[in-house]
């Protein structure tokens, strides 16, 4: 008797899954990733599966390796001298550390938004058109369309449409950051990495970027490092808690913030340290 009920439940669950959403693909599969800065180990045995069209937040105290991890995903970490890695990160099934995997190819698929807004010292238009241009798109008409679409996508079009030819450094910090997001959208990446994108912004600009992230996840997979736990709770679907270079807990955001299974996670999110 009980067995049949159990079975029915399982069946229902499967049916539920099917009717609500089709199963999502894994974008990034990290297995046994270790990373050293010289002799210091910054990441220890990381195993993480990141699914597409979701917002995955990475939280943790300073120095826990969350920025290191996100920079490893597009191999920007290799710009730091003396970095060594072991293990594997598969992006869409292909190991990004493979010798045959061109780093430019990876970064064309995986965009990045940085902690501090870093527009190029060019016009607003040129900033957005930079990516398509270096990848060989030259036709003025197409570029115009891409620029408008990307700026609209980053919810900044209305603010800048009358001054596209002015220097990007005339914008406010929050506008600059949304411009950087637009610059990233212009090459239509698959994944967007965001490394504490709001840490240098005021609360209103932060709100705008957060709303934007919610819209963007319809089309893109977003991985966001944040210092701010409330932010992670507000905007993410899944959350990974990093501590001392290890993943302590990785689960649905709701679960992490309501019933964390690890004591350390609970201590961190309740503000006992960090």
């Amino acid at each position, binding site marked *: 008797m009980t067995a049949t009920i159990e079975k029915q439940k399982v069946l229902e669950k499967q049916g539920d899954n099917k009717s609500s959403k089709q199963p999502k693909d894994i974008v990034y599969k990290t297995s046994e990733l270790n990373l050293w800065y010289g002799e210091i180990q910054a990441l220890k045995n990381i195993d993480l599966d990141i699914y597409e069209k979701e917002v995955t937040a990475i939280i943790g105290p300073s120095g826990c390796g969350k920025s290191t991890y996100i920079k490893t995903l597009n191999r920007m970490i290799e710009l730091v001298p003396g970095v060594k890695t072991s293990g594997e990160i598969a992006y869409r099934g292909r190991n990004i550390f493979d010798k045959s995997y061109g780093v430019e*190819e990876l970064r064309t698929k995986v965009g990045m938004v*940085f902690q501090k807004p*870093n527009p190029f*010292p*060019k016009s607003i238009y040129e900033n957005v058109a930079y990516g398509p241009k*270096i*990848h060989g798109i030259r036709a003025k008409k197409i570029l115009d369309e891409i620029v408008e679409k990307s700026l609209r996508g980053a919810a900044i079009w209305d603010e800048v449409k009358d001054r596209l030819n002015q220097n990007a450094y005339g914008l406010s910090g929050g506008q600059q950051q949304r411009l950087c997001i637009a*610059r990233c959208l212009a090459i239509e990446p698959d994944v967007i990495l965001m490394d504490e994108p709001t840490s240098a912004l005021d609360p209103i600009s932060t709100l705008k970027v957060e709303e934007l992230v919610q819209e963007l996840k319809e089309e893109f997979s977003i991985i966001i490092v944040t210092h701010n736990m409330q932010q992670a709770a507000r905007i993410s679907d899944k959350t990974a808690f990093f501590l001392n270079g290890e993943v302590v807990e990785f689960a649905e955001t709701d679960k992490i913030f309501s019933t964390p299974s690890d004591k350390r996670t609970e201590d961190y999110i309740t503000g006992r340290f960090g």
Partner: protein
Amino acid sequence: MRSARRASHLAMRMKGVLTLAIQNSPKSFSVQEMIAAKKQKKGPSSSIEKIVPFLLLLTAIVSVLTTLGIVFTLIVETFTFFGRIPLQEFLTAQKWYPFSETQGSYGILPLVSGTLKVTLIAAIVAVPIGLASAIFLSEYASDRTRRIIKPILEVLAGIPTIVYGFFALTFVTPILREIIPTLEIFNALSPGIVIGIMITPMIASLSEDSMSSVPNSMREGALALGSTKFEVSLKVVLPAAVSGVVASIVLAISRAIGETMIVAVAGGSTPNLNWDITSSIQTMTAYIVQVSQGDAGYGTTIYYSIYAVGFTLFVFTLIMNLLAQFIARRFREEY
């Protein structure tokens, strides 16, 4: 215990120096009171503070006055020259024959063409090599390589120009004559190339400075969009550093225009208005050297002509500097 003893010992030692305030309370003393006491004693320090800015201003004025003096002398003597030779002849005549007794002709154009030929050749040599080295040093070289190469470049800039002159005449010219048999011993090509070599380190070093000061966050931004290193250097770093790069190029070209020893040694002394780089030339500077060496007495037209030529040279470098400022402002990418 020990620190207390040390403090009281210190207080005792200071007693002799200090004023009444401390004698009243021998156990403790106030730093503020000590400072006040010192201040009362030392009068002159405040007057030094007042004199220093004045002295500094005076030294600044020295260089300003010198510049004004030079420009003033140039202008006065140039006016004397134009009292004898009409400005129109100076600017339009095709021949520069100041030493001819019977048919002296003072047309500046042949000297200008000599200077321009040499400068142009120098720029063609120096700008690409200098910029390429700057990009290499700033974007590609490791810290170690940069630390080795940059000082060497700067040493190159410190070689006396007379050495470059003989290098042009005795080393470069013979090699060039192997390649171009019609090349005269004195010509524009050889000193042009050597001046180019001379100013290359200047462009490389100054451009490298302004390229390395472009913030790394911009390189990261471009790399994260899938740019190659070369695209980052050429399309992000170089444009961001353009004002410094242009300034370095203009500074180097000004130096080439004013360069004297190399052209005096290897360029010849035949002012000719043409674009032939294989024959003997004379630049404005080389002419001034020739006259200064004693060919003309004080008060002669030839004597005054060197001021007119010097003034022309001055106008050229002034234009270059204004041009540099204009270009730097026009193409500046502020960050």
